[in-house]
């Protein structure tokens, strides 16, 4: 028993560890690097040889695959190295320490990157891992303050470099799509080779060090993803005929040494500036390339479908695709021709990245960071991003807007009216661009407005409802008129009632003479409703006839649906209550003002 089948396909963690002759920490590292994860067997008890103890199982094939991993030897070498080094330290043999450090064993992850599943796919799909692991990728890349002491600074900087190159790339190709300011950080979505990639950057504050986090694990992830990203970046840059890693350092170094303060070099800003400065040529190239790829995609699409579809359909599809492409192009040029100036209190990196990737030109105060190209006083500035209200005398000829305007505009794919975003104004809610409402879901009214705007309805129509509200508030006279009308209605009603009473009296008088015949009440049978009822009853009866298992499933599904509806209703109700509260408050204020 237990010598065939699933029992032989799985191996417990401890057994695997013993087979590999690794310590637990090394085993974990190896698993992370090689992408080996435990599997949940279908019949746990069978696999567990009859025992029901909680164990984690690995596929035995995976473990065999690890057995031939050359990096395991590197781990061992490293362990030996550490032991020697510690010994030398203990004996204060500094020469030995030096010598050992010179020959510190290091390893490369290239082959692992190559053989990782889902990465060894054709080049077009390469960024996909990025998207699937976006969650990890960023933590690993950006736990700035949370780095452990033992992980080297160089590693972190390299991670930052990789991310910077990604941002540069997306900046260059105008691949950025969506931005979302959440309370956790800023989410970005970019499209690289048709694959959406989402990553999050925390707000630029120092983090406190959580003690319940194993930094070794994070460091291992960082190590792997940095390498992976490097190779992917290389590939992407190569596809754009660019050199990777970009050779701008020396240039910037000399420039910086002559012109700027050298302290800024080590900071991330210099990286970012480098990214920005490289954005120019990259953009040119990207633009040169993108239509080609787009046309290729357009050509490839119908070919695969072409068989049965008639020519008209094809034409319609083509039309749709063309429109979509046009919209995309338009979205990419959203901020073209606009010149932005960032005040020092706004998140500069994020805004500069977003604005640049949508074709805008951006600058900031010279004393804030290197890379400023023009001054506040430049008359050609169209938008100044401000977050503190009422701090300077406004310059005529430019809009002062809060940073949310930029992000909302990007998500809405159009330049929103700036009036809602003036400094000091209560901002409209910032909606998540990642939510696509399905039928039956709750849609916030702001989103509805936005959709209307996108469809091309004008702002005038859009604001109508609000104006109406105001009118209601304002127009007491109108209300009075309405009241009068109502009164008229009331009068009419009362007249009718009187008539009815009179007729009733007459009837009563007549009743004395005539034989008594009770007027039967006419039952209005709504045929539709009856049919509906019948339908629903039939359904109920059919449900009664369901088998037990199916009934359970059905009830579960229906429960889920009902819960969804309930939640949507709850949200709608909440919104309604809130709106009413706001309105009544407004009214009260007005009354007080009067």
């Amino acid at each position, binding site marked *: 028993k237990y010598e065939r089948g699933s029992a032989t396909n799985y191996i417990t963690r401890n057994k695997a560890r013993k087979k590999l002759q690794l310590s637990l920490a090394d085993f974990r590292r190896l698993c992370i690097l090689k992408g080996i994860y435990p599997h949940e067997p279908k019949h746990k008890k069978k696999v567990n040889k009859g025992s029901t103890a909680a164990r984690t199982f690995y596929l035995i094939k995976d473990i065999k695959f690890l057995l031939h991993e050359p990096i395991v030897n590197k781990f061992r070498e490293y362990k030996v190295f550490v032991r020697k080094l510690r010994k030398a330290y203990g004996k204060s043999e500094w020469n030995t320490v030096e*010598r050992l450090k*010179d020959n510190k064993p290091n390893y490369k992850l290239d082959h692992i990157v190559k053989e990782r599943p889902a990465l*060894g796919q054709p080049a077009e799909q390469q960024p996909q891992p990025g998207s699937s692991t976006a969650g990890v990728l960023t933590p690993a890349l950006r736990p700035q303050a949370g780095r452990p002491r033992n992980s080297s600074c160089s590693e972190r900087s390299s991670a930052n470099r990789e991310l910077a190159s990604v941002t540069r790339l997306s900046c260059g190709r105008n691949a950025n799509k969506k931005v979302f300011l959440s309370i*956790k950080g800023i989410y970005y979505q970019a499209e690289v080779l048709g694959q959406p990639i989402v990553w999050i950057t925390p707000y630029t504050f120092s983090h406190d060090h959580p003690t319940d986090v194993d930094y070794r694990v994070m460091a291992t992830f960082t190590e792997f993803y940095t390498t992976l990203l490097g190779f992917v970046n290389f590939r992407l840059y190569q596809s754009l005929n660019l050199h990777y890693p970009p050779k701008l350092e020396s240039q910037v170094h000399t420039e910086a040494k002559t012109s700027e303060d050298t302290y800024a070099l080590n900071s991330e800003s210099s990286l970012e500036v480098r990214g920005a400065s490289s954005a120019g040529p990259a953009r040119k190239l990207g633009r040169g390339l993108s239509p080609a790829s787009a046309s290729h995609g357009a050509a490839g699409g119908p070919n695969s479908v072409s068989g049965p579809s008639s020519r008209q359909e094809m034409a319609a599809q083509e039309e749709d695709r063309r429109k979509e492409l046009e919209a995309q192009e338009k979205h990419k040029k959203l901020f073209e021709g606009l010149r932005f100036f960032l005040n020092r209190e706004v998140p500069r990196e994020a805004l500069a990245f977003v604005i640049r990737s949508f074709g805008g030109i951006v600058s900031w105060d010279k004393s804030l960071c290197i890379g400023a190209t023009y001054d506040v006083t430049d008359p050609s500035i169209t938008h100044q991003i401000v977050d*503190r209200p009422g701090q300077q005398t406004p310059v005529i000829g430019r809009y002062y807007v809060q940073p949310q305007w930029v992000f909302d505009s990007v998500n809405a794919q159009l330049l929103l009216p700036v009036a809602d975003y003036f400094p000091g104004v209560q901002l409209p809610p910032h909606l998540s661009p990642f939510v696509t409402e399905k039928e039956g879901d709750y849609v916030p009214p702001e989103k509805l407005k936005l959709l209307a705007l996108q469809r091309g309805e004008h702002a005038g129509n859009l604001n109508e409802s609000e104006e109406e509200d105001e009118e209601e508030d304002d127009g007491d006279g109108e209300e009075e008129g309405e009241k009068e009308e109502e009164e008229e209605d009331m009068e009419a009603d009362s007249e009718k009632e009187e008539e009815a009473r009179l007729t009733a009296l007459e009837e009563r008088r007549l009743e004395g003479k005539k034989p008594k015949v009770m007027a039967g009440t006419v039952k209005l049978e709504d045929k539709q409703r009856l049919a509906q009822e019948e339908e629903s009853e039939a359904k109920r009866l059919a449900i009664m006839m369901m088998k037990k298992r199916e009934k359970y499933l059905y009830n579960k599904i229906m429960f889920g649906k009902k819960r969804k509806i309930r939640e949507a209703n709850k949200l709608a109700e909440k919104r309604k209550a809130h709106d009413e509260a706001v309105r009544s408050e407004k009214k009260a204020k007005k009354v007080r003002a009067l």
Partner: protein
Amino acid sequence: QPSLLDAPAPSRRLGSDPGLSDSDSEESVFSGLEDSGSDSTEDATASEEEGEGTSEQRGRMDRSPGQQVGPEVTSPTVFPSQARTPCSRMEVASMPGEDEYAEDSSDEEDIRNTVGNVPLEWYDDFPHVGYDLDGRRIYKPLRTRDELDQFLDKMDDPDYWRTVRDRMTGHSVRLTGEQVALVQRLQRGQFGDVSFNPYEPAVDFFSGDLMIHPVTNRPADKRSFIPSLVEKEKVSRMVHAIKMGWIQPRRPRDHSPSFYDLWAQEDPNAVLGRHKMHVPAPKLALPGHSESYNPPPEYLPSEEECLAWEQQEPEERKLSFLPRPFPSLRAVPAYGRFIQERFERCLDLYLCPRQRKMRVNVDPEDLIPKLPRPRDLQPFPTCQALVYRGHNSLVRCLSVSPDGQWLASGSDDGSVRLWEVATARCMRTVPVGGVVKSVAWNPHPTVCLVAVAVCVRPGVPRVGPAHGLEASQEERQDGLWLRIHHGKPVTQVTWHGRGDYLAAVLATPGHTQVLIHQLSRRRSQSPFRRSHGQVQRVAFHPTRPFLLVASQRCVRLYHLLRQELTKKLMPNCKWVSSLAVHPAGDNVICGSYDSKLVWFDMDLSTKPYRVLRHHKKALRAVAFHPRYPLFASGSDDGSVIVCHGMVYNDLLQNPLLVPVKVLKGHALTRDLGVLDVAFHPTQPWVFSSGADGTLRLFT
């Protein structure tokens, strides 16, 4: 005054100089003596300890004249040297000679006044300020000067600015010009000594210059010109280590690029076998509106929701954070759990067991079985037509006459009522003097006979299991025809299709639970020799000589002529409550107290053909319609469910069961709903009797 002139430490001499210059000879002698005694120790230190020197200067300057009151300097610090001049000057007579050794060292106490280290305010009320060495009082100056005097002094005395008061003696001291200069220098932060140069060039004994003469005259060691053994050993060890490969030369730096086109030689279509088993990690959910820094107001939790969120376990929470609004972007703080969340994701990626789960993605409408529409299965009873009221207690049983004109019902109130079906009129009430357990109308169309099972107190002596009694004359006028006494209460009576045989079920343990009475012959018999559990119901087969006996767990089919068990049906329910046989005879339905209705197709198997769980509560009665393909079940939940049960003549086709109507009308009393159901023999009508004391007709 030669001793004064050659004083080696000018800083020390300064204070005493002016004093000496205008004092008498004894003093000068004294000071000279003192110099000679203390110089040897102090000279050396004076030059080095500048700080100390200055403080000494200052202290001395205060006191030395000891004449006038000055507001600027009051220093209670004690220095031995400063004491010398004033004391000697005040108590000239006493001082000389004896003191010279007492004040040898520099850390002597002030001996002009021996009060010690006490606040001098304590002496404010006394004429003296302390005691001298001999214990005599030191008196204050006779006349204390008041404000006016001070003012006058200030106006008149040109030296007022340079007079200070010595607090130890109470006298005013006028500072000399040198002392003033000293004070001024100190105030400027300079050294007290004018002639002291703090920046003298340092003389370096061991200079870097090569001298022609060695510093020491020692001859060189032997080891300095013999090769070192230790070093040799070390070198040989290193050579050995290099030979053995323990020490390796520094690795040349790797100059190959760290990144290159990794997938250059990759076959794009190659998929490693291992990748087939790959289960990709589920993606993280993208953020919704509620995660925004400025969410729409409806996404903000109310206070109760906040509280509920806080009380939940972190794993149970729907959102891992509480939505919060911020008025502007600059007010948004760092997210505290950022690193933890990333870390959790990392953990999930490499620690969490993965499994491919097939999500059931079905349209719930598809799950509903496609049944013929009830409208197509008409006729069946659809609505309540009549209510028969009259009984005071729950109506346990009812029976319809074979022509469908009359209805008999038995109740707990001890009466049997006969109703006209069409008008709901109670034609007759027959008090029977006991709880009526069962009524059954004789199916023979020519005989008008109702069998009633009544539970009465046994007034007749027991003779065997059953004992028939002809009714008396007057009873006959009342309609009673025959009375059969049983030893035990009868729970059910039922007629054979011909109307001659009557089966009764007794509530007794043992084999005499079922008795069959033959009316024409006035004969009773107990067909079973052995009991198989408590019998719940019996029924005659409509066409063949079979008797169905339902015990608690199973239904047995006996052949009456051959007197053998033909079939045993297993309904798989806890407690069978009721039983009905299809008029064609091949199908049996069985209701049970665990709210199941079981349909047996006896041709098919002894297992249930279909189990219907339509009712919420225990079933009390089931019935087949004699003509139409209908059957009904009444239950404790107060509803009667009418189903279409079509049995085809074609043996290959299974019966079609479709529920067509749920009839409600009976009110629940004492947790009991419908107690009995029966169909009209000719019409598609169903009667039901309930615990609320009514009978209802649904048409």
